[in-house]
């Protein structure tokens, strides 16, 4: 028997029968992407941090300290082989924002960077001690 022919025929039948009642138009009937553009590309600038923290005076020195601390953690993560591809860009953006005097944005980015830096060091120590948890039984 010709398997390929059989498969093709049944697939064609499936597609035809599927399309007839309108099965194929799922891509057209939801306007999701039009209205959802409120979400930013990076996903981190749409937060309300700027408003929430407007009464807290941000100063560049503090942000620099946060960044320095994050970089230290990043080095620990990288040195143990557990660096992430996402952090270099965050660091560059944070430094640029700082340079341009956009303190709120710089603060936001440095907080995010610290979080990821910490998470990568935690992952490194988890993997060092508990890598065998990934052995499927």
């Amino acid at each position, binding site marked *: 028997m010709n*398997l390929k022919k059989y498969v093709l025929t049944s697939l064609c039948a499936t597609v035809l029968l*599927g399309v007839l009642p309108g099965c194929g138009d799922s*891509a057209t009937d*939801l306007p999701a992407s039009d209205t*959802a553009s*409120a979400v930013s590309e990076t996903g981190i600038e749409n937060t309300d941090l700027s408003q929430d923290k407007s009464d807290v005076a941000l100063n560049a020195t503090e942000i620099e300290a946060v960044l320095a601390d994050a970089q230290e953690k990043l080095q620990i993560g990288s040195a143990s082989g557990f660096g992430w591809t996402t952090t270099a860009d965050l660091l560059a953006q944070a430094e640029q924002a700082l340079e341009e005097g956009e303190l709120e944005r710089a603060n936001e980015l440095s907080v*995010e960077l610290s979080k990821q830096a910490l998470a990568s060091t935690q992952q490194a120590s988890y993997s060092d001690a508990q890598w065998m948890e990934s052995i499927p039984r």
Partner: protein
Amino acid sequence: MIKINSSSGVSSTGSVAAAPMNAVMPLFAVFAVTLILICLSIQPAVAEEVALSAVQNQGKQLAFERSKGNCLACHQMADGALAGNVGPPLLQMQARFPDRAVLREQIADARIRNPGTIMPPFEAHGILSAEEVDAIVEYLYAL
């Protein structure tokens, strides 16, 4: 056909390989019929779907987007095309997660409830922001 036998609890049936051809034939018939039935039953559901709110739409986009939630990589959901089957299909989410906080935590850091999970800790690892996780929860609750 090949059955994926799993002792780790995450499993599903796999696809066909190395089986004699005559054993494969009826499977395609079953497959075809199943597809048709699925199409027939899902179509009215899609047509009847309640319009999503702005935040639900935002959540949907985040859930589908590859560089964001990319939920479709592992989960079937609503009208998402080419969904994976690594995780369970996302449907009846309110019934399955009556406590919204539990659903939220499952996305934010699934390790809290299940240390052996392979689901990425979306918020804990900064893959999604807290606000993005919230939007996805809103969308999932509409499923």
